């Protein structure tokens, strides 16, 4: 990614979230490193769908496969806590900000808010 938006970590996380240590911090850090970050599991088909969605839009997302990461299971648990629901993946961060799981991503695409968000994050050009 050429244009990477960075910012302080704290403001991007919901105020209700408690920084419980490494997993969440790592998630935040990874999320802010790239415009579009998808947390995924390689065998998950819905993750595949969401990757196809972004690629179909011309976006090149950064994908973090939790099953291939040594601290993946901790991060998975942290994501569940963050989302307030299972499954943990797929979950999308754009511009370091949490967008949500598949249903939120699709809803925002349908109601036309996804594309501006991507443009703002520098993931999409006209």
């Amino acid at each position, binding site marked *: 990614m050429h244009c990477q938006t960075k910012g302080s970590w704290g403001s991007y996380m919901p105020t209700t979230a408690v920084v419980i240590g490494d997993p969440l911090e790592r998630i935040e850090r990874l999320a802010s490193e790239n415009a579009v970050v998808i947390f995924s599991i390689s065998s998950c088909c*819905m993750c*595949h*769908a969401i990757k196809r*969605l972004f690629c179909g839009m011309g976006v090149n997302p950064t994908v973090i496969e939790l099953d291939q990461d040594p601290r993946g299971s901790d991060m998975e648990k942290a994501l569940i806590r963050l989302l307030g629901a299972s499954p943990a993946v797929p979950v999308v961060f754009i511009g370091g900000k949490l967008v949500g799981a*598949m249903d939120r991503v699709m809803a925002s695409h*349908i*109601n036309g808010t996804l594309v501006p968000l991507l443009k703002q994050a520098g993931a999409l050009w006209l």
Partner: protein
Amino acid sequence: MANHRVGETGLTDSGPSNHHHDISYAVLHGMNVPTSFIHQEGPAFGFGELEEAMVLQGVKTRNDEAKAPLFTTGRPAATLEMFPSWPMRFQQTPRGSSKSGGESTDSGSAVNTISSKTEIQLEQDSPSSTKKTTPLDHQQKMASDISRTGTSQNQSIAELPHEKRRGSTSEKQLDAKTLRRLAQNREAARKSRLRKKAYVQQLESSRIKLTQLEQDLQRARSQGLFLGGCAGAGGNISSGAAIFDMEYSRWLEDDQRHMSELRTGLNAHLPDSDFRIAVDSYISHYDEFFRLKAAAAKADVFHLITGMWTTPAERCFLWMGGFRPSELIKMLISQLDPLTEQQVMGIYSLQHSSQQSEEALTQGLEQLQQSLIDTVAGGPIIDGMQQMAVALGKLANLEGFVRQGDNLRQQTLHQLSRILSVRQAARCFLMIGEYYGRLRALSSLWASRPLESMMSDDHSCQTTDLQMVQPSQNHFSNF
């Protein structure tokens, strides 16, 4: 003629005699006489006790014998109703029974005791005792010997009609009451048998009717005539699917109501504010539909994903357990004129984004299918149980895809209502409703079209008394 005089009633049929014979047979051969036969005697569960009870309580025994048919028909309770005064009689019987017991102890075995007592009564009571079935004849002969020696019993015959309630001797009293009771027992037994016969006949006819109905149903299902048609070839439908089908048909009725509301509103050129309410309620109506589908996806995802809840024509265009949003928009675009430029852009971008989402979900589902194929095909490493467990885990993901499909559909409808003006939205929803109504009507027409192959069958597959799509038939008037 119907003769209910004491002792004669039950003699014309062979029933009680037969059953009496059965019980004697059972006792003779030391079989376990089942508990309910003797339950009225109290704790006499063993054969020895039974024998004793029979000997000592001759009247009671006779009663129970006569009740035996009822027992064998499984309805001992019916007998009790026949003897409202039984408890009273019970107190009197021991006196009498001991005498009659003493009378026939010559025979020694309980069998003869039972048979002799009963036979004595039977023989004395009716000149037509010879009408009884042959197996009893030997018992009768045995009994008749004893009976001829028992003068007191002979006396009781004459006194029978008059001395039901009183008798100078306890034996006479015994006989009268016993006879009456016996006769009542027989009558009850006969009635019980008739009831049973009627019931069984009723069951049989119901069974035949049921199989016929099932056959009709199967034929209808294969034609897909049923609205929200029940599950496929097996004819089995899960409860989740059945519930959804029911709720869906109710939803369709509601849909009709909403649509006629919108129609009359449009025709009457109501002010926009009125339409706002109607449009919002229509959106809520669709939200309700997606809620129902979410519950159904959890209960029985296959029912949704195979489209068994829809009609064949709708099923043809099925995508991820429902309609394809981009197709719907394509259908609407031409009919929604006039639109402002902004609205046109909004609609086209909606169509575009829904197409992209559909493509993404389709690819995700394809990957799931491929993964499932790989699992089910198996390999040398995986054992059967594990293979199934893995496959089951993968199947569980289907629900997620159907849910996302419904989510997409719901979001599309919401976005449409945002892009369009209130009046346009009303027209739009009406068009959607009518479109699917026509598809359903098409399904019905298709199924009921005359075919050469069907002509030879009986016409149950073409009958209109099968539940055709009722709502869609109303549509014809609107086209």
